[in-house]
């Protein structure tokens, strides 16, 4: 019996049962309210449907809370119990080994087609694990049913002609919406906290200043953690990308919003925005296979010119320039789409005013529309910069791995994101300075993009206040 429960797809069953309970509770609540009203529902404070919703809410909310807690803590409880029951010799293995042993038990136990391994102790533990899971589920379900029944009777007992079911339902909806918003915020806080925690562990081993201002980066050997070459590579590539994206994005936004006929606009704008939908790994291919060889060939050609000293450009097979150019193309839609929005938000009356003064279209755009849209355009550019700094795939594929500081864009450079990927892929142990440095880099990246985004949002807000 317990074993059966240990294997059932309980989640779906529960969901169905909860839905049925909610439906029934709604029906009962509604009927009761109709009974109270004796046919004159206008006498009720709230219409019968709201009484129904209220009883349904009172029924499923407590059950949902219990099931949620079970999902969060159920497995840990079972594991703790199993750990306690294992013989002393296995428990003496130490925390990490014990956890791995239980992982194996749990994996074996939850597989339906698992055969006995022949190891009597392990098989017994596996069966026991299945039973415990079944037991914990039955317990959770019983508790949930009790809570639902309690909620149901509580809900019914509140119903009366004066009961403000509508207001209570409103409170319930408000709480639900708040919960969703809170989950988003809490997740963000959680991410930052975990980053910060690991970064602090790193900084307990490596000095903050030697990390932030050191110019030698040899993390793979665990020797040097000076991140300046990474910051340099990141900002150089972002700068190159902005050299491409800022003018092209801005000018295409001006063309689309001021010059293009509605027909052209309806074709060109979606195509531009399609650029944003291309997976970055595809851009990575493009950078590596197509742009990087061209950059290299051009650099070699320049090196061969008579008045250029030998080896003037590095002409590497992967280069900052290749990554920067392609990244620039990738972020064009970020610049153009946002700029297009802010240019369109400039009131038509301003344009009319300039035209009526006898200004031409380009004079109007340059002297009236752009100054009015400038804060929004700056915000768009800042958001694009923070996108460029955080971009990973293109630089992983096309920028290279070498941590060096050189203004030569045809040299291979590395960035913060490339190093994070390099440090965290493959076999890693999560307590070496090498791995932890990835979190420190991630934290720096987060802070930098956060600052850019905050400035952008502030600028946009100021701009909005001015024109609405």
């Amino acid at each position, binding site marked *: 019996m317990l074993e059966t429960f240990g294997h059932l797809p309980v989640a779906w069953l529960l969901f169905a049962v909860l839905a049925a309970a909610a439906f029934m509770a709604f029906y009962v609540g509604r009927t009761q309210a109709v009974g109270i009203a004796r046919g004159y529902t206008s006498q009720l404070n709230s219409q019968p449907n709201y009484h129904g919703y209220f009883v349904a809410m009172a029924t499923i909310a407590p059950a949902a809370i219990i099931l949620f807690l079970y999902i969060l803590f159920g497995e840990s409880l079972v594991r703790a119990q199993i750990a306690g029951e294992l013989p002393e010799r296995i428990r003496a293995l130490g925390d990490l080994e014990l956890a791995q042993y239980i992982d194996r038990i749990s994996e074996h136990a939850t597989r339906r087609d698992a055969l006995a391994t022949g190891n009597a102790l392990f098989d017994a533990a596996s069966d026991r694990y299945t039973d415990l899971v079944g037991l914990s589920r039955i317990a959770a379900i019983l508790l949930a049913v009790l809570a639902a029944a309690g909620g149901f009777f509580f809900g019914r007992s509140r119903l009366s002609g004066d009961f403000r079911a509508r207001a209570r339902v409103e409170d319930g909806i408000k709480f639900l919406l708040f919960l969703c918003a809170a989950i988003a915020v809490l997740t963000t806080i959680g991410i930052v906290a975990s980053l910060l925690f690991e970064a602090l562990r790193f900084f307990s081993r490596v000095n903050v200043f030697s990390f932030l201002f050191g110019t030698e980066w040899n993390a793979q050997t665990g020797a040097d953690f000076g991140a300046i070459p990474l910051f340099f590579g990141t900002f150089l590539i972002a700068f190159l990308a902005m050299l491409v994206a800022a003018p092209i994005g801005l000018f295409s936004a001006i063309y689309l919003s001021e010059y293009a*006929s*509605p027909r052209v606009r309806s074709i060109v704008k979606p195509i531009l925005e399609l650029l944003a939908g291309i997976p970055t790994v595809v851009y990575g291919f493009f950078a590596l296979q197509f742009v990087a060889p061209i950059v290299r060939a051009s650099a070699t050609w320049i090196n061969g010119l008579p008045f250029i000293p030998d080896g003037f450009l590095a002409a590497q097979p992967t280069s900052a320039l290749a990554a920067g150019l392609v990244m620039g193309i990738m972020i064009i839609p970020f610049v153009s789409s946002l700029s297009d929005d802010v240019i369109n938000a400039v*009131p038509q*009356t*301003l*344009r*009319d*005013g*300039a*035209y*009526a*003064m*006898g*200004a*031409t279209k380009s*004079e109007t755009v340059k*002297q*009236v529309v752009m*100054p*009015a849209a400038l804060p929004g355009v700056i915000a768009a550019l800042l958001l694009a910069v923070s996108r460029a700094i955080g971009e990973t795939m293109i630089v992983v594929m096309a920028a290279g791995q070498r941590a060096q500081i050189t203004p030569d864009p045809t040299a291979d450079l590395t960035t913060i994101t490339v190093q994070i990927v390099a440090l965290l892929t493959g076999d890693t142990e999560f307590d070496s300075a090498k791995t932890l440095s990835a979190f420190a880099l991630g934290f720096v990246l987060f802070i930098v993009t956060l600052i850019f985004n905050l400035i952008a949002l502030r600028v946009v807000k100021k701009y909005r206040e*001015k024109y609405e």
Partner: protein
Amino acid sequence: MDGNMEHFTQTKSSARADTASAPIKVDCQNIDVYYGDKQAIEDISLQIEDRSVTAFIGPSGCGKSTFLRCINRMNDTIESAKVTGKIFMDGANINDPAIDPVLLRSRVGMVFQKPNPFPKSIYDNIAYGPRIHGLASGKAEMDEVVENSLRKAGLWEEVKDRLLAPGTGLSGGQQQRLCIARAIAVSPEVILMDEPCSALDPIATAKIEELIDELRERYCIVIVTHSMQQAARVSQKTAFFHLGKLIEYGDTERIFTNPEHGRTQDYITGRFG
């Protein structure tokens, strides 16, 4: 301007002006305007006198603003709009393809419903037009143009100490007078006003009306208004539009006391519209 009278005598007027005292500045003949397939203006002919105020009245959507925008070819900026017919200004047809609308608009200024100062300083707002048309050489001359325009618009005393402050920081009424000053700065011959007081309070409105009355000495002014009292107060001639047609045109005094058409009568007495 010599050709004005002569020009006037040779055009036949379909909507007759009651008195032909002043010279004609703008002579519109058989104007039709279409927005896509929809006809907004049907065969309107109308003569506007120089150095006077002409008011366009009529219910919303009657085409009075559209017609006003024909006079400086602002309808060109609307993709779907198509204008046919002739508008003579000093003898030249402004709808002729050879006419540069950009130059035309420096001769025909316009003031809009909502004050729309540029996102620049008060000074630069006024200097904008003279700069793009090269009307002032040197700083001293430009300063003079700015001061004169602001004086004519009755704004100089209020803003002379903060010419470099942003124009958007002024009150609504001041902004509208700034826009009038901006229009005056390029020395136009005609000033078009599209409900210039609809976003203003009664005190600011009174100031603008006073200003319009002063400007009448120098310019040909056409004003679109929803306020019957305003039309009666500031204009010498009134044209009543309805459903894209010109119903009646004549001396303001006569239109308001003794209209020829039943529709005009109904509108000005508030029976519809």
